[in-house]
């Protein structure tokens, strides 16, 4: 029985439209025009307990609509949703007591209150048993390294500290499922690494099921075993990330620095992308031409100083994917 089940989810918004200007505003008072936006057109997927899923797609694709429906704060127009065996919006109090949600750009903690007091307030809100609360809080504080931050008001925290406190806050009531919406947005590099590490450990050590929405593809690369791509309100892909990459942009790049001017290379299945004095950038398909074979072929024939093999940047892969499916920003 999957922990999260989504079947043929559909949601349509009616957006009021108005002509600009004074006259338009007046007309708007009298006659309302509506534009129909189909945010979700039949989305289906499921998650087993303990999975870590990356949820990506261009803006306006339907990601936040899906998250809101899964959270129980938005009612779908059609389809079936089940989380932890419950229908989210039908049983909202019971449902939200079993999920944790972190929004990247907004904090749920109280701005002027020390972090620890914010946690205590949440413990009362979620009616957490005091003994469990204390033990769990200790664990989370250790895991998220919040010891020094506990008695500082939230407004004094750095963005990285705030995000860690935010994640702890979302887990105080020990929900089996965690929704993360852009958790690393705006963070500096070390903080991003720290947050990713935390999410990984939560998933591996505590078995928390994680659904991660993000635009930062390095988050995906670092964390997600499986990726769902949403575009135009539909699921465009649902597979492990490497399979996605291979399906879209299978090529690898080879950067070679030669001892002297770069030679003219004419090898089957190899494309010269750039020539820059003594350097060459080549593109090849590793399925047809394995990297080790290619490198030894070139090195045997020429004086090679340095070699660098890389995959195309994830952003490129994803952008290519969106392109292929016409899934540009709505």
């Amino acid at each position, binding site marked *: 029985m999957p922990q999260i089940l989504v079947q043929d989810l559909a949601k349509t*918004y*009616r957006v009021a439209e108005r002509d600009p200007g004074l006259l338009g505003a007046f007309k708007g008072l009298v006659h309302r025009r509506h534009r129909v936006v189909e945010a979700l057109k039949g989305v289906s997927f499921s998650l087993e307990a303990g999975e870590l899923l990356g949820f990506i797609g261009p803006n306006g694709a339907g990601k936040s*609509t899906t998250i*809101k429906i899964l*959270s*129980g*704060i*938005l*009612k779908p127009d059609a389809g079936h949703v089940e989380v932890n065996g419950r229908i989210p*919006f039908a049983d*909202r*109090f*019971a449902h*939200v*007591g079993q*999920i944790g*949600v972190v*929004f990247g750009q*907004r904090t*749920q903690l*109280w701005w*002027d*209150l020390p972090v620890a*007091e914010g946690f*205590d*307030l949440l413990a*009362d*809100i*979620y*009616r957490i048993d005091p003994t469990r609360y204390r033990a769990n809080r200790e664990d989370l504080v250790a895991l998220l390294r919040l010891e020094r931050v506990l008695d500082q008001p939230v407004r004094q925290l750095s963005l990285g500290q705030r995000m860690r406190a935010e994640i702890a806050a979302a887990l105080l009531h020990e929900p089996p499922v965690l929704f993360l919406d852009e958790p690393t947005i705006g963070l500096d590099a070390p903080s991003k690494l720290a947050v990713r590490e935390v999410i990984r450990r939560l998933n591996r050590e505590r078995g928390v099921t994680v659904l991660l929405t993000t635009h930062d593809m390095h988050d995906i690369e670092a964390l997600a075993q499986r990726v769902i791509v949403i575009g135009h309100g539909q699921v465009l892909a649902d597979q492990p990330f490497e399979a996605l990459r291979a399906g879209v942009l299978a090529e690898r790049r080879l950067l070679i620095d030669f001892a002297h001017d770069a030679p003219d290379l004419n090898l089957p299945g190899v494309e010269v992308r750039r020539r820059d004095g003594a350097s060459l950038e080549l593109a090849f398909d590793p399925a047809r031409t394995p990297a080790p074979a290619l490198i030894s072929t070139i090195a045997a024939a020429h004086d090679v100083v340095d070699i660098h093999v890389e995959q195309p940047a994830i952003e490129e892969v994803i952008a290519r994917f969106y392109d292929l499916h016409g899934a540009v920003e709505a």
Partner: protein
Amino acid sequence: MNSLRLLLRYFDASMRSQLQYPGSAIMLGIGAFLTTIIDMVAAWALFDRFGQVQGWRLGDIAVFYGVVSTSFALADFVTRGFDVFGTEFVKTGAFDRILLRPRSPALQLIGYEFRLSRFGRLAQALLVLFVGAWAVGVVWTPDKVALLAWTVLGGVALFTGLLVLQASFAFWTTESLEVFNVLTYGGIQAAQFPLSLYAGWFRNFLIFVVPLGCVAYYPVLAILDQPDPLGAPDWWLPVAPAMGFAFLGLSFLAWRAGIARYTSTGS
């Protein structure tokens, strides 16, 4: 009950947050006290010039005002969350977070902020109330004190209802509606004077639509041991504050309708 405990914790958090800036809190309180003083200035000047109106004197007006202003001060103290609901919660999407907690949204909004400065108005209102009552010779027997408490409760219910209604409108317009200030602050001004001064249609508005007359005029008549010049039966006078609760009940219907709309159309 766990809800009460939660409210106390919210209250505690709010107090501590404000007392971080004690000077500011005091200033705001004094400011509130001073601004509410002007509520009575016009009445005072008019009585000074004209002496009385339909047999009512300044002391009577002070009691009417004191009761309704006390009710508002107390309601204002617990409804800040509803007051700023449109701009702070609907427009920003912060209401989503409220829905993500396994607690009633109304409870969370009551806990949002308890402003100490409201005690400035409360102090002034009680002062005016008791000085006015003394001036017209009210004797505070236990049943009058009970009636006063009951009246204030009804008033708190009414003003809370107005603020809940104002917040409900925000689900449709996404802004905090200033028009409701007319009914709260304007309501205090209107309820200062006995209903008999007003034109018939307005009187009915203050009894049947926004029942300010029921949480000030009628019960205070009973406290002042006066019969109603408009002819309402004596038994009605102490019962009238119940209308405040009825109004509150209706406003919560609007509130729930608003939440239903929010959860089906997103934000």
